[in-house]
């Protein structure tokens, strides 16, 4: 059995984001990077399946990006992935979801993966398109926002999270792709022996040009913080006056008293 998990390294969301000089993405200065949260659920689920299937099973982790993404790959290896592929692309952030998906499917198309795991979406771009597009390009079954995953003899039974907390159950036959959502599992903290072992595992580097033959379909034209609207107002003083002020504001700025 062959498994693939696709991960992305993203900036920590607490970071201070500033647009880059082209104004189409963020500047990487002063950003701390980590593995995309949803991808951690994907890795954990993939590792759990890998452990369940035992020796005949092989789990590959793939990430696209500049050299820094090796850190995220190493973490996946420490969590339990067997092999690693680093698609080297210093301009990955300028690629659209179609191109990213095309790179992955170009890599995966002749490898015969039975199950492919991805995060539901990335925390930075948040398109939620890459996983489903890969499945489409490979012509395999796909389900998204998975919060429950059981594999049994070629069939995946997945629980999906829908709007408003409603859950749905789906069954799909492998080969298949699932995109993973918060609530699926609790990602493990790598143990030291596994971190040590991970250091010795080979990370296969593939230049992005070897895998990418597609032009972007949706270009980002601008990246900027939301325009500042009026900030909050802190009212101070006598309660009686405060009430009058509040009523005035409500009348003036809202429709609730009309």
């Amino acid at each position: 059995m062959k498994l693939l998990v696709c991960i992305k390294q993203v900036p920590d969301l607490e970071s201070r984001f500033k647009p880059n000089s082209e104004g189409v993405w963020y500047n990487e200065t002063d950003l701390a990077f980590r593995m995309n949260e949803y991808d951690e659920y994907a890795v954990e689920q993939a590792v759990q399946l890998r452990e369940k299937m035992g020796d005949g099973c092989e789990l590959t982790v793939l990430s696209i990006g500049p050299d820094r993404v090796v850190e995220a790959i190493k973490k996946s290896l420490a969590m339990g992935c067997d092999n690693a592929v680093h698609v080297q692309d210093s301009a990955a952030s300028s690629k659209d979801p179609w191109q990213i998906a095309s790179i992955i499917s170009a890599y995966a198309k002749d490898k015969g993966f039975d199950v492919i795991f991805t995060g539901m979406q990335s925390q930075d771009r948040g398109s939620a398109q890459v996983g489903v597009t890969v499945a489409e390009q490979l012509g395999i079954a796909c389900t998204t926002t998975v919060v429950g995953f059981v594999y049994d003899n070629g069939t995946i039974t997945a629980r999906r999270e829908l709007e408003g907390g409603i859950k749905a159950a789906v069954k799909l036959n492998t080969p298949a792709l699932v995109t993973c959502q918060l609530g699926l599992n609790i990602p493990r903290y790598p143990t030291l022996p596994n971190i040590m072992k991970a250091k010795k595992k080979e990370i296969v580097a593939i230049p992005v040009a070897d895998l990418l033959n597609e032009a972007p379909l949706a270009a980002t034209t601008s990246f900027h913080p939301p325009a500042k609207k009026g900030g909050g107002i802190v009212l101070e003083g006598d309660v009686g006056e405060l009430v009058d002020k509040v009523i005035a504001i409500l009348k003036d700025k809202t429709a609730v008293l009309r």
Partner: protein
Amino acid sequence: MEVAREIYWNIGHGVVIPMCILAFTAMGVICWGFWKRLPIWRQGKPLNRIDRYDERVKRMLSDVFSQSKIFRVTDGGIFHSVFFWSFLVLFAGTMLVMFQADFFTPVLQVNLLSGEFYKGFSLVLDIAGILAIVMLIGLFIRRFIIKPDGLEIVRDDYLVLQLLFAILITGFLIEGARMAATEMQQNPALALFSPGGLLAGQLFTTMTADTLLLSHKVLWWLHFALVLGFFCAIPYTKLRHILTTSANAFFAPFEPKGAIATINMEDDTVEQFGAAAITDLTWKDIFDADACTSCKRCQDRCPAATTGKPLSPMKIIKQIGELAEGNPAGNLIETVTQDALWSCTTCRACQDVCPANIEHVNKILEMRRNLTLMEGAFPGDEVKTAVNNIEVNGNPFGLTFAARGDWAEGLDLKIMGQDSDVDILYFVGCYASFDRRNQSVARNFIIICNAAGIKVGILGKEEKCCGEPVRKLGNEYLYQMTAAENIELIKAYDVKKIVTACPHCFNTLARDYKDLGLEVPVEHYTTYINTLLQSDRLRLTPEAFSYTYHDSCYLGRYMDIIEQPRAVLNQAGGSIREMDKNGYDSFCCSAGGGRIIAEEKLGSKISEVRIKMATDTGAPLLVSNCPFCLTMFEDGIKTGGAEGQLQVRDLAEIVAERIAA
């Protein structure tokens, strides 16, 4: 007529040979008993604790004979110490008698035990015997009638007390019988020098001479048999502490307090980290269990144990001993339980007060290392998040590392990355960098340095968590990763001196980083400010205030810095009202050992207990020297209902307000 007494009176010198044989047999039993325990200790990993032999011997002799560690705690300690010294005098006296009988008299033909010396000798030994009996009665009342909380009563306690009591009483009875037959009749003046014997002798005055002689003989043999029993019981009962606890004073570490073995992360042949079984511990860790006398002083001091958490340092030591002896393959961590291990604040109160030199804290850390490094375990999800935050942003809050130096905006200091020509590097730490309350401490420290004309630099956004909380939680890997980055940075700036306002950073940089190659002198701001005051570089305008002072564990117990902060505060105009638990006896705030990033879910809140101790002094102000303590106390004042009654402030805040214009 020169007075003396006839040794072996009524027993005869013929007894020497059988007596020697029996005594040597008893010694053999002791050796055999300990020999049989050797394999138990040897299950542990090797550790060199016999280097610096002379110093070790000196330390052991001073520890044992001074009894200083025993009577530091008066409850039980006074009885034990006085009993020990009395028994020692009796033992030495008996030895002297033996030498007199078998060496001085036959070989040298002199009698030391005669004349005035004999009178003194007799009086001292009698008084020692009486004192020993009184102390035994005291110990008996304490253990069986008062029954202090947590003091267990086991078979050995009955046995040992009875045995010692019987030895002392029969000793006086023999003396009494002999005196009734001899000096009470022939030389009553001399009998006054044996008050105990004189008293016991009254029992024999009505006896016929034959009965008296027979009684004396029987009592003599009984006494001798009891003494042999005492020796033979040593390896098999609590009495073993006579040798094992003494030996532990020899085996105690010479490393600085708080030193933790730094794991070699380069060695990829190692696949087992921390302790999950007896065999993962050192022989000394197992030996410690034999040195433990169950005095429960550790448990009485433990902030976790005294606030209803499932941790007793004593119990852990006992559990290690029980596993080593009865179930060496057993799971150490399951036996001790994760809850107990995670409850430790590494405050060192247990180890500091232990009269047997037992090393509690590092055992707990070794087990935590196993949990963390081998199992990826955490005390709670909040800790996992904080650890991840340290990995990503270098601070447990998860705030962007780029904002680490923001607190310093507008202050007169240098960012090392821009200008590293400074007198001191102020290693700010996570709390003073990001926590609003503690940022005030950092700012005030800078104001103080400015007033003293000290050029201060900070690493700003390049600084990372020192790694202390994660190290104390067992995550040696993450600790070494962050430490290595800090060390590389500090080395690159050619720093002359580092000052920290956090005792945790202080301990880590000053001691732990040495193992990783940092040799720069590191000082805590309390001593640094004290030196500035002493050398008149910093001048204060004192302003009277009443305060109580909290000795943080990592400044007081770990680094022996107790007087200097008080000196600074007093120079600022403070008059102190000490809490009962102060100095080396201070009570943890709850945040050590990585607990700062963990929620306190078990038992009652340690910080509230400490706040109560502070309010009990009547002082309106509690002064701390540690960002963790400050955080816990701000919280404890609110949740413990002490708002309006007590305020907590940092030493730097007090000093900065009083800088002379």
